[in-house]
């Protein structure tokens, strides 16, 4: 499921625990011309990227180091994030870790696509600065990807919105 990406293609990092959903999202994104990196847990996110670049597996505690390496090696244009993930850490933990490293990583838009509708969870994501929050079952896959595509080719600046 790891793809080689070129500069013209936009790359989406998809983090989703349900295998069938992960596969269908991956397939649709490729069909639409994106490059895709997939992961089912927070650890896997960082290891997937490092592994791909021949840097071996790294424990979750060394996230900062991983990101420092990756800054120059991998370019992710957007992140598709589910809230419930395999392992102890969920989407919110990922966003916190991700944003804590600052720099280039802070500018990558994060789209949370989850089936959780808890307003506390949504508020936390909004406060952390994600671009948009979708309730999975209420949207067509095509519509979500169109949205992501539009926001990667922005015409106007957007505010964080819950959908």
């Amino acid at each position, binding site marked *: 499921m790891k793809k080689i990406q070129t500069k013209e293609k936009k790359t989406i990092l998809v983090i989703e625990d*349900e295998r*069938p*959903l992960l596969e*269908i*999202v991956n*397939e*649709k994104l490729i*069909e639409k011309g994106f490059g895709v990196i997939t992961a089912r847990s927070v650890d896997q996110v960082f290891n997937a990227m490092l592994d791909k670049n021949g840097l071996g597996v790294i424990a979750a505690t060394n996230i900062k180091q991983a990101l420092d390496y990756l800054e120059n090696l991998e370019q992710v244009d957007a992140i598709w994030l589910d809230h*419930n993930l395999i392992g102890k850490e969920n989407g919110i933990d990922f966003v916190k870790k991700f944003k804590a490293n600052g720099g280039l990583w802070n500018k990558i838009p994060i789209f949370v696509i*989850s*089936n*959780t*509708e*808890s*307003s*506390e*969870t949504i508020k936390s994501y909004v406060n952390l600065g994600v671009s948009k929050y979708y*309730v*999975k*079952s*209420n949207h*067509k*896959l*095509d519509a979500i990807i169109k949205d992501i595509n539009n926001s990667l080719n922005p015409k106007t600046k957007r505010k964080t919105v819950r959908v």
Partner: protein
Amino acid sequence: MNKQSIISIPDDTIFKLKILAEEKESVRRKLVVTAEKLRLKAKQLAVTAEEKESVRRKLVITAEKLVATAKEKERVRRKFATTAKQLTITAREKESVRRKLAITAEQLRIKAKQLAVTAEEKENVRRKLVITAEKLVMTAKEKESVRRELVGTAKKLRLKAMQLAETAKEKESVRRKLAITAGKLKKSRETLERKVIERTKSLEMARAKEEAILLSIGDGLIATDEKGKIILINKTAEKLLEKESKNVMGKIFSETIHLEDEYGIPIPLAKHPVSMALLGNKISTKNVSEIIYHARKDKSRFPLSIMVTPVTLGKKVIGTIKVFRDITNEHQIDRAKTEFVSLASHQLRTPLSTVSWYTEMLLGGKIGELNEKQTKYLNEVYQGNQRMIDLVNALLDVSRLELGTFPIEPKQINIIKLIKSVIHEQGPQINSKKIAFSFLPEKVPIINADPKLVRMIVQNILSNSIKYTQAEGQVSISISSVDKKNVLFKVSDNGYGIPRNQQDKIFTKLFRADNVREKDTDGTGLGLYIVKSVVENSGGKIWFESTKEELGTRFFVTLPIKKIL
């Protein structure tokens, strides 16, 4: 020699002579004409010469006249010049006379003023003399009356001396009586003092009992004065806040109670429940949408349920009483409920999402071309799955309403804007059914309510109206304000209506009327139940009309402009 002497002249010469003669004749005639013309011309010239002569004479005359006129004018001009000089001299003389007169007038005015002043002074002096004369007369009179008074007073003094002698005797006897009374009073005072001590003791005991009761109730209790200084704190409060009574008495409440919100941010002083109570409002955390925590010394914290009541005397706030307790347990239960609902929603929705997206992909045609029947069947699968998703969403809303975990976040809403946006969303349905649609908004104030909930109410009722009306039917919405406290939202259609004998079940869970089920329309049967709960929780009302006389249905919702706190 006679006739033969006639010279024979050849014919052509005769002819030539004739011609010559004719020519001479014509020349002669011409000359005559010319002579005539010349004569005429001479006459004309004579006339012209005459005329010129007369004109010349006239000109001479005129010239002479002009000369004469010029001389006259010169004379007249000289006369005017002379007159003008004389007038100038006269004017100068007049001017100097006028100035002399002005000066004289000025001098006269000054003199007049001086005279006036002198007259005034004389008048003042005269008046003063009159007053002085009067005063002298009065003084003489007064002296006389004073003299008479002194004589009278002397007589009185003599009388008084005699009276005093008598009074002295009386006083002595009174003094003896008073001595006796003093003794009696002393005894009564001692009795009273004993009684006061007894009464104070019993009051103190009663107060101690009351205090003991207050101090030992299970909830934390703090009382403050009108400035917010603590005047009473019970044991439970001491324990919960980890403070000792002697350290907090007399201190401002905000130094003792450290409140913070969900995210650890301290509650600002103005929003502290005690501050608000000092302004005269009864505050209870049940009505506040945020959870308040107290931070302990060890940085751990617990959620509080707080109720603060102002104590008033007449209209003035003289203090507050704050009752609070640790609701960690209740909070955990609430958390558990919310997590259950959240988990349930996630578990139910995940497989539904899978079916939905995979079907979507198949219908997209990129996985392989589909024939007509395959497309139709897949669409049925997609629709069926969509109905399940709607049902799950509705059930989750219902369970949150019943568990009381429905989040309510009131904001200022422009309800007309909100309705317009819902109408826009329903656009495709309105157009595909060619519904004749109208929206009649009246001016309404901004209302204070949760926009998500108001949107849900509007969307539900409007989509019902569109769903349950035939193609090319009519749907209209109106919004207006009633009695300054509420807004009225109305949706009416000329659709299928609601059967009389089923109207009482319309707001119950999962109920769908027979007539709409027959018409093959979709619906969870939960929409109106949810809307009714939400409307009534917000302090509003919902009802409808559907009669045989007037076809279709009319739904009415009233919402308060201010959310009731």
